């Protein structure tokens, strides 16, 4: 089986301007949504309380919402989590409410709504582990079960937000230094601009749809950043090699050739990674949902930006043969030359 039977180099760079305009527009749109709507940050960043409960059957969210609002805990959010039976309640940090009581209060209110009472239940699991947990009991039934709760103090939240930003910054700087050292500053700038543009677009999606931006999503974003930069690295490697090999080609032709010849590997690699990510999206449940979504957007735009944007920016920055191929040093095809660069 073989998918790619490309006879001659595809003139990608002829359309570089179009690609860059498309990129710019998506980028501007992403920034616009980030600025106007902002990210829907999870409580890990903002501080607050989350309570997840499970009902034996689908539940009316309006009723639940009314019960929670009655507690006077500030602007709470009530939504389904994964299925119609699972309900997630998010309570922000609210002045005058002791944070450590919030989870108990919410569970108590939900239990009362089902006309049950909260008692502590102690039992031994089938496997033989003693478990003690608060349970809502109405007669013999358990009309609402506690699944999990999470409480984050406001100081921890702002710290996490700061650390997240720092991690992003260090990643960007580290990658730039590495690329500048391995190639040349023009490539380093081009690759970082292209891939940061991916990051901004992922964030733009999260802002537009108001998907929850959590720590795991942040991890996905950073993983994508490292991952799609290596896409650019593969292409740059090829550009360097083509400069060396085909002395008569112009810069544009060299870039076209490099992109065309790495096409097959790019699609197959990303396809495989995407298969894994899709598997997480379908089977990973609600906890991994946005993680997988962020990776999917990142992988798709990663291909686009490394192929079309990074090379184009390098071209605008005026990459020349002389930048990469030092004149008169050694045999250009010497396989032991550490700067020979690899090819795909």
């Amino acid at each position, binding site marked *: 089986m073989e998918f790619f039977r490309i006879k001659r180099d595809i003139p990608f760079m002829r359309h570089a301007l179009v690609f860059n305009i498309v990129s710019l527009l998506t980028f501007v749109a992403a920034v616009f949504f980030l600025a106007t709507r902002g990210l829907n940050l999870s409580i890990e960043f903002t501080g607050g309380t989350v309570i997840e409960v499970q009902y034996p059957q689908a539940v009316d969210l309006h009723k639940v919402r009314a019960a929670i609002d009655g507690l006077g805990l500030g602007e709470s959010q009530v939504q389904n989590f994964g299925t119609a039976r699972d309900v997630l309640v998010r309570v922000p940090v609210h002045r005058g409410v002791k944070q450590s009581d919030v989870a108990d209060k919410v569970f108590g209110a939900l239990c009362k709504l089902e006309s049950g009472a909260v008692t502590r239940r102690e039992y031994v699991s089938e496997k033989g582990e*003693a478990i003690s947990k608060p349970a809502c009991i109405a007669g013999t039934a358990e009309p609402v079960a506690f699944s999990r709760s999470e409480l984050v103090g406001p100081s921890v939240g702002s710290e996490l937000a700061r650390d997240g930003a720092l991690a*992003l910054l260090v990643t960007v700087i580290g990658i730039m230094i590495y690329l500048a050292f391995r190639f040349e500053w023009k490539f380093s700038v081009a690759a970082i601009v292209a891939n940061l543009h991916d990051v901004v677009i992922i964030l733009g999606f999260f802002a537009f749809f108001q998907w929850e931006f959590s720590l795991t999503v942040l991890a996905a974003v950073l993983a994508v950043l490292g991952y799609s930069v290596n896409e650019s690295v593969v292409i740059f490697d090829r550009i360097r090699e083509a400069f060396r090999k085909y002395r008569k080609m112009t810069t544009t032709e060299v870039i076209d050739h490099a992109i065309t010849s790495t096409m097959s590997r790019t699609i197959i690699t990303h396809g495989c*990674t995407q298969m894994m990510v899709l598997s997480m999206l379908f089977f990973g449940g609600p906890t*991994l949902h946005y993680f997988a979504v962020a990776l999917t957007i990142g992988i798709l735009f990663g291909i686009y930006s490394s192929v079309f944007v990074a090379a184009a920016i390098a071209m605008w920055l005026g990459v020349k043969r002389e930048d990469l191929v030092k004149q008169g040093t050694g045999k250009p095809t010497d396989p032991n030359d550490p700067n020979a660069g690899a090819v795909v």
Partner: protein
Amino acid sequence: MNRYPLWKYAILVIAALIGLLYTLPNFFGEAPAVQVASAKATLTVEADMAGRVEQILSQAGIKADLVQYEAGSVKARFADTETQLKAKDALTKALDPDPKDPSYIIALNLLPRTPTWMTRLHALPMARGLDLRGGVHFLLQVDMKAALTKKAETLASELRVLLHDKNIRHAGINREGNAVEVRFRDAEMQQRAQNLLADQFADLQWVASGEGTDLKLTGTLKPAAIRAVQDAAIKQNITTLHNRVNELGTNEPVIQQQGADRIVVELPGVQDPARAKDVIGRTATLEVRMVTAHDGFDPSGQVRDYDPAKIEEAQRGILPPRTELLKSTRGRRPDQLLVSKDIVFSGDDLTDAQPRQDSQDQGWVVSVTLNSRGAAAMKATTRDAVKRRMAVIMIEKGRQEVLTAPTIQSELSGQFQISGMANSREASDLALLMRAGSLAAPMEFIEERTIGPSLGADNITKGFDSVLYGFAAIALFMCAYYLLFGLFSTLALAFNLLLLVAVLSMLQATLTLPGIAAIALTLGMAIDANVLINERVREELRNGSSPQSAISAGYERAFATILDSNITTLIAGLALLAFGSGPVRGFAVVHCLGILTSMFSAVMFSRGLVNLWYGRQKKLKSVLIGQVWKPAAEPAAKA
């Protein structure tokens, strides 16, 4: 050219065997167990408890698969839950004859079913994070300012004693925040004090100021001393937390320092944060009160209040007003004490208690430091109480226990010693218990997470399914697209998974859902290396190389690109590791390790397979790498 020397195959085989050995423990699952831990701060479970548990079980005719002592508790593993429950009953009957006042906590638990020979090789299963097994997680912030204030308070009272001993007259000692201020009326005293203090109180930076009769010496804590205080505070709080958490009887509680001033507490299996918080937040209180009568035998006859008749009366229920009868069980002479209800000082006034070796007779003592309030009370009480006894009482869960009842030898104040300890162990136990009443610094809950057990089990299935189906999809595609080379790539990917799980188990990493996600993602990215190699081999074949040289060139030339692309991914992973916390850290650890193992498996292992298959065939005509399409004519541009 495509032959590996024997040692390279040997490395691969050894790596595979080690990988298998350390991955296997994760598949044995868990068996029901019973855990015996101490219920009292004054009682520690020692290694000999394991023997006792074994004896009790064999007397009851219950067969335990394994009885082991580990970190202050004894765990016994059983074949099924029925035996487990029987064992619990037997142990409760034998160890806690009085259900109202249990000495031991006997809890139902789970233990890994790993065979003993594997455990001996430290081949243990990965611990599952709370999101996979359910439990509570707390993040506690230690109030370091309070710890420093307490330290300054201690230093101030030590200072007072020292200046008094050395006959240096001062006009008052004050604590201002973390600084200690000593005022003087004349310069000579100030000078003498400065020389002395710079030498004896090296933890403080001394600065002289003022003029005329209003002179001052200000000592501020040096940065190194501040760090030492903070470290000690965290350590003491962790110790105290350990004692309290043991009482919950959970399996493998995690109590760890995080950053400079935070403590993480994770209690698997506990689903009730309110109760856990109650236990963690509770302080045992310490009270020191005067003994009004005792029946302890005293050969010298100098100890006052020796009055067995009064004790006998008290035993019959006739108590003088404001006293109570307590038994001193610790130490070498168990005796009955009639103790006043008036408190001389309490745990709040105690700033420190440390075991020390006495400089004169080399005996072990506990050196106690009180704050100024405690010091004043101590001085007022002991002035007329030489040769009387005082009782140090610990009150825990409403029960009173006399830790020690020493005889007062002279007038005491903020600094004194409790002597007569048999050995260093007894001294450090007493010091620890006295301190256990108080945390070194107050703590505040700043993060709290509770995960139900069913949600945890659900998360495991989901995480496992994601990896399984993703892996299957990649394997199918690779085999279909690259045929035999695809199979080799798939095997290499499986080898990568094996190594990754083995390394994580060796490091005893805690597996969380983000960790599983990282495994999935790393596998999805690691296949890149094999795609690079396979594409390169195809390209070499397309350019007309012979199969053997195409394989060789393909692997060698793809390596630089693989290295490059992995380094950029690694940079992102390391940044996450450095700045991430909680779930992100778990993700980053797995991600970074996965990149490293993939370098080994994708390049060396898959090459090994290819060499083994094709390397010996001298006249190799074709390789099974899928169709290699050749363009009819070279494009003109490629001149």
